């Protein structure tokens, strides 16, 4: 083996406005080692990788390679220092060939395809891959695309390879293939970081496990010496907040029945019932297919299989509803507030009445603006939206208030079922409590809610029942009193 590469990360911190994403993290890594990096969403794994990959610089601390301090200011810098970033979704030029993808950034002058293909083949063979370098990337399955991305990192002299949840969209076979390649690279002296949500993968593959929580390293030791229980406890940290002593509520009437819902590889044959007045939580790690369930139910993604039925309250019981018409009966508070949650340049009243315009008609042709504004004012007050007036643009409101505007717009439509995806991500503590209380109130008034959240506290606070999702499949169900962190983590990894 040639020179051994060492990477030292010393006291690195990174602050974003209002958040300390990394807090004096120090890690040392050597060539020929596979390091598993785990932590819940927001623990700082991605931040650390992005610093090493040159996406953004650290606020404090230093990085040394072979004892020499380096500044990584851009992805090109990272490449120069031999750091290769293998993304979860391969970053590729899909209409170009494999060989071109591997070396396009280093081309100059005339292109000699023979040399290009030979170089690509060399790096692919290094990983025991027999992908034809002349094939277009668009024609490769996703697993092979990842191989191409690794080959690209290798061809630019990558000795430190960062894998960011590479298996998220893999089949089991592709996963094993990738693991073989990673072990091969380890033998060749590369230093490998492997981020994953799946503990079994980390246990199977890595030599060392590092657990991050709230931007700090909480475990750093040999994978073989660390028990799964330790990892779980340290991932979550602390004891769970006491659940309020609300009584177990009884539900009798099924309002929505989902049967065998399948869309692509997730959700995968998901079935559940939602009772009238119930708040049902969906818990799972990122990539488990939580949002995908809501999107398929709401008709945004095409479902391959399965049906949904609703009790429309007309005495006919449960009736099958086409997915495309679900939006008439349901409200959907989306996860990405800024992308698809609301119309940022519009005012509060315009946003609030947008999904429900047919109820605000003055006559056949024209809308009754006054009634729209009037009702918006009422709901602003009811939900305690802090806005100067209903004419204020939503883009100028704070995150929590934007979220309330979104909730209000669906409340005004009075749907049967609410889909709520990560309702309190990125909102402050006060607004968080109010939004959670609002969900409870909705349920008390007889609406049913389907809530997706990655925060266990939130689920135990608002939900009557939680179903657990693992890689697109439902793997368990817990009642309110049974919700606790250990159980949830065990069921989902």
């Amino acid at each position, binding site marked *: 083996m040639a020179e051994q590469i060492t990477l030292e990360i010393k006291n690195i911190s990174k602050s974003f406005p209002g958040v300390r994403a990394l807090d004096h993290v120090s890690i040392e890594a050597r060539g020929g080692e596979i390091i598993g990096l785990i932590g819940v969403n927001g623990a700082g794994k991605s931040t650390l990788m992005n610093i090493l990959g040159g996406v953004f610089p650290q606020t404090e601390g230093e990085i040394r390679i072979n004892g020499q301090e380096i500044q990584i200011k*851009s*992805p*090109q810098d990272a*490449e120069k220092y031999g750091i290769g970033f293998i993304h979860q979704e391969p*970053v*590729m*030029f*899909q*209409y*170009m060939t494999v060989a*071109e993808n591997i070396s*396009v*950034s280093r*081309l*100059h*002058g*005339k*292109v000699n*395809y023979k040399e290009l293909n030979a170089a690509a083949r060399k790096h692919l063979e290094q990983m025991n891959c027999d992908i034809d370098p002349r094939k277009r990337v*668009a*024609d490769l*399955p*996703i697993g092979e695309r990842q191989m191409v991305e690794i080959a*690209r990192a290798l061809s630019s002299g990558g000795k430190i390879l960062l894998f960011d949840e590479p298996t998220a969209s893999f089949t089991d076979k592709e996963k094993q293939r990738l693991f073989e390649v990673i072990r091969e690279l380890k033998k060749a002296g590369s230093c490998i970081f492997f981020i994953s949500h799946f503990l079994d993968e980390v246990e199977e593959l890595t030599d060392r496990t590092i657990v991050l929580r709230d931007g700090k390293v909480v475990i750093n030791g040999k994978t073989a010496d660390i028990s799964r229980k330790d990892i779980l406890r340290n991932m979550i940290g602390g004891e769970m907040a006491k659940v309020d002593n609300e009584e177990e509520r009884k539900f009798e009437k099924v309002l929505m029945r989902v049967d065998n819902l399948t869309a*692509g590889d997730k959700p995968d044959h998901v079935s559940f019932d939602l009772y009238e007045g119930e708040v049902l939580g969906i818990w799972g790690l990122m990539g488990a297919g939580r949002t995908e369930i809501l999107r398929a139910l709401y008709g945004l993604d095409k479902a391959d299989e399965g049906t949904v039925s609703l009790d429309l309250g007309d005495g006919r019981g449960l009736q099958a509803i086409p997915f495309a018409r679900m939006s008439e009966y349901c409200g959907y508070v989306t996860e990405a507030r800024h992308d698809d949650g609301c119309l940022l340049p519009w005012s509060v009243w315009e946003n609030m009445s947008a999904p429900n315009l047919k109820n605000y008609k003055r006559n056949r042709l024209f809308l009754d603006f006054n009634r729209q504004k009037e009702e918006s004012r009422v709901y602003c007050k009811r939900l305690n939206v802090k806005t100067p007036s209903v004419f204020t643009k939503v883009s100028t409101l704070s995150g929590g208030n934007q979220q309330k505007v979104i909730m209000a717009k669906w409340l005004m439509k009075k749907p049967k079922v609410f889909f709520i995806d990560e309702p309190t991500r990125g909102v402050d503590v006060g607004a968080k409590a109010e939004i959670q209380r609002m969900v409870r109130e909705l349920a008390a008034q007889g609406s049913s809610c389907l809530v997706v959240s990655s925060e266990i506290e939130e689920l135990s606070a608002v939900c009557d029942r939680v179903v657990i999702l693992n890689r697109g499949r439902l793997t368990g169900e817990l009642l309110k009193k049974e919700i606790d962190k250990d159980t949830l983590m065990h069921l989902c990894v």
Partner: protein
Amino acid sequence: MKLKTKQISVKDFLIKYALFILIIALWIVYGINSPHFFTIKNLRSLLTNAAPLLIYATGMTYILILGEIDLSVGSVGAVASAAWILSMTKLDVPLAAAFLIALLIGAACGLLTGFMVVKLRINAFMASLGMQFILRGICYLSADGEQILTPKDVHTFANYRLLTLSPLIYISLSIAAIMMLIYKYTAFGRKIQACGCNREAAKTIGINVDRIKWSAFIISGMLAGLAGSLQCVNFGILLPGSIGEGSEFLAITACVLGGTSLMGGTGSIIPGTLIGVIFYYSIENGLGLLGANVYLYPIVRGIVIYLAMVTDSLKFSVGRRKSKGL
């Protein structure tokens, strides 16, 4: 399983070669209905007429592969051809040197459009549309709104024959070939495709996307200058309102017909754009031979544009289905 792959490949084949199939069908129909269609004389004039559009479309292919658009090329051609003719008539510049002036003026126009797109971050559609109006105005002004007869040299050039073919054919074909080679076999060409495929990824791996884009606009402008001048050769007269009029849209249509995606990332000049141009001119040529009403032409043009869009969207949807099936 085997059957399924076969079915898909037949469909892919049909979509991929739709234009070839159409063009052959068209030729057969014309060949049967008009004895003049398959004569050397007619095919020669078809290619000569098609030469300017081929050059416009060659530059446009680069722009479209980058995922941009350039609506100014027609007017660039007009301004450059005006400069070409005027420098010969007013300043007595020899023909070849005047050609150089036309090319430089075209390149300068492309430089300006590129500047607006790359540096001022103006949307390419609007930036080049503005250029289209401005340059057309400049063309009218420089010619005083008059038609100007081309000097004798131009007629000699137009009537010159190499192996019985007009020089326009050689010029346009060799430019298409050179541009195709540059696209396929140089780092610059490969980077154009990379930028068009995935701009963010191109940036991350250290490609200077802005410089590539700017260069493509300059090339497109330069080729437009040449194409406009050649149009002038074909007309035998400088018509400030007609040279390059609508050429940008015909160029885009030819590119898309030839398989270049409006979303960027994929396309080819030979065979793609070349076939697209020949297809378009075959239709016009045949209509002429059949003695069709001239007012029919714009309608046929419109239909061809739809045809181009349908093939584009078919290809796109097949591609999407594929990537989803993975």
